[in-house]
């Protein structure tokens, strides 16, 4: 059995602040096999971004602290790896960050930034290159992401380009390092609907063509439905449900997932749902056990213990005592 490309086991992350310790991630686990397209869905503060930051080693520590758990890339433990191995592993993972307008350096031309990425990733793989070669690679990358005038874009500053173009450049920067694993953080949130459509189609195309493994982090359910095979739903630092994306939408089991899906206004015109009662918990004093319990209409006494992941179908797990065997 080959190692999964990325595996997170029972990860717990705390943030030590003046007001107290915030237990932001409470035992989250994730498996991504090579070639899969996985989504992580959740609302603000659920811990999806933090999980990826920890995997990439960019979690701000302090105040963050990984209190327990493992993160493994192809079997290798990222949390205990030495600097050299870590560098090598990181060169095989790429991040498409959120919000292009904040992720591109406004005072450097696009070409410079792109070629810098090529230069640094090559050096971490022990290769050197020359400037001409880098330029060629950069131009190719821009062509691949569908920019019609790569030469001109190379010489532009980010502010001269539209949101959609900036997003394409971020994708190009992620691809140019030839990663095995691509992590996309809110890839289309800042974009207009018609541009979002283009970007999602582009990503689908690229992922299929290059046979990449991709993890998409988003709060937009529509995006995971378009792009992923399997989706994790997180709530307040815990797993709520994980399933094949199709099943998640047609047969969601966890009350939170159901509430979430119901909250999205539908074209069928069913009216507005009143959302989900209650608020996200205070992480410095979270509810014991299932953190959704205070908001759940099916809450039972046993929910004060943390529910294990019950398997309801193949590849469909729900962390909810309603599905206790």
């Amino acid at each position: 059995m080959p190692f999964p490309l990325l595996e997170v086991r029972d990860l717990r992350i705390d943030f030590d602040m003046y007001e107290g310790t915030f237990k932001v991630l409470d035992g989250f686990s994730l498996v991504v096999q090579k070639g899969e397209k996985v989504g992580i869905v959740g609302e603000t503060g659920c811990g999806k971004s933090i999980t990826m930051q920890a995997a990439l080693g960019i979690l701000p520590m302090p105040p963050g602290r990984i209190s327990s758990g493992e993160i493994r890339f192809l079997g290798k433990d990222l949390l205990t790896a030495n600097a050299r191995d870590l560098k090598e592993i990181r060169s095989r993972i790429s991040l498409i960050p959120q919000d292009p307008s904040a992720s591109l350096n406004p005072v450097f031309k696009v070409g410079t930034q792109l070629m810098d990425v090529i230069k640094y990733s090559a050096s971490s793989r022990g290769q050197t290159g020359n400037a001409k070669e880098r330029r060629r690679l950069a131009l190719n990358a821009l062509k691949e992401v569908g920019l019609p005038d790569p030469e001109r874009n190379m010489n532009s500053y980010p502010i001269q380009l539209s949101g959609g173009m900036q997003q394409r450049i971020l994708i190009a920067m992620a691809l140019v390092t030839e990663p095995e694993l691509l992590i996309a953080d809110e890839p289309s949130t800042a974009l207009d609907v018609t541009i979002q459509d283009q970007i999602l189609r582009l990503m689908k195309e690229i992922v299929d063509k290059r046979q990449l493994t991709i993890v998409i982090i988003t709060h937009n359910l529509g995006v995971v439905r378009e792009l992923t095979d399997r989706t994790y739903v997180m709530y307040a630092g815990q797993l709520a449900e994980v399933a094949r994306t199709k099943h998640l939408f047609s047969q969601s089991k966890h009350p939170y997932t159901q509430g979430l899906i119901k909250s999205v206004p539908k074209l069928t015109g069913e009216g507005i749902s009143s959302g989900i009662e209650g608020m996200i918990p205070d992480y410095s004093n979270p509810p014991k056990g299932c953190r959704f319990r205070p908001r759940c209409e099916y809450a039972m006494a046993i929910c004060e213990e943390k529910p294990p992941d019950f398997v309801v179908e193949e590849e469909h797990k729900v962390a909810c005592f309603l599905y206790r065997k």
Partner: protein
Amino acid sequence: MKDLGEVMLVLEDVRKYFPLPRRIFKRKGGYIKAVDGVTFSVHREDILGLVGESGSGKSTLGYTLVRIYRPTAGKISFLGKDIGKIDRGELKGFKKNMQIVFQDPGSSLNPRRTVEQTLELPLRVHNIDGGKERRRRIRELLSVVGLPGVYMQKYPSALSGGQKQRVAIARALATEPSFLVLDEPTSALDVSVQGKIISLLLALHDEFSLSYLFITHDLSLMRNVATSVAIMYLGKICEIAPTAEFFAEPLHPYTQMLLSSIPVLTDEEETLKPKKVTSTGEVPSPVNIPSGCGFHPRCHKRMDMCSQIDPEMIEMGDGHAVRCHLYSEAEITALSSQGT
């Protein structure tokens, strides 16, 4: 047809242009034509959804209505009065009656002011109540938006996005307006919170007989909330219709492109989307408006005349109007004489 209430707001060919800074070595001054000839009317208790992408001018139009911007041209009549011509004294009365809720709850509340101080502002400006009465009224406002009185002393930094937006709504209601401009009031909020705020807005609409101009990019939301929908593109309205009619038969190619690009969650919704129109090209900026019909570079049904002549709004009956050559008299007669 449903009895339309009194006419609250009428816009006639409203335009808002921003002058581009003149360069010393370039001859042309030029304008950003953010709003370029908008006409519609809103009746009492209507919820008009104004939908568009960035650069469409929808927010600019909203700001022009509440006089953050002065219109460059055109007439805006509110409750029969031409707002462009009212004097200072009447202006304050107008401001009492039309308010706005902004998009970003984070910056629509002064971070240095408590909730109470923020809500007191409109009451103080318009000399409503005083002293103890005022505090009571602030409490009332908070309870109307579902916040307990203890929130009065909190600073915005202690509130969640949804709570901040509730305060912003309470502030807008403080002067008992009859018309609210809502500029993407829930775009910055989580999905599970959006529903609560929208439900609140709908409840307030019913209870106080309010009229809304609901500015958004979210068509699915409008399907469930609006009484009529208008689509804006590059400062002009492309299509406007009562909601059911709008979604049943979207006429404008841009509307079709928008609707077919929405990421939906259920298969049922997929069937309701118009045939897939692959969106191409970038959302243009109002600095560089294409000649003729602003949408023609991206239009999948483009004809020769579209790059030369800007179409007029064409009434299609039942309150449905569309600005597109495809539906002009000449075109229809030409087609019918050609084919069959």
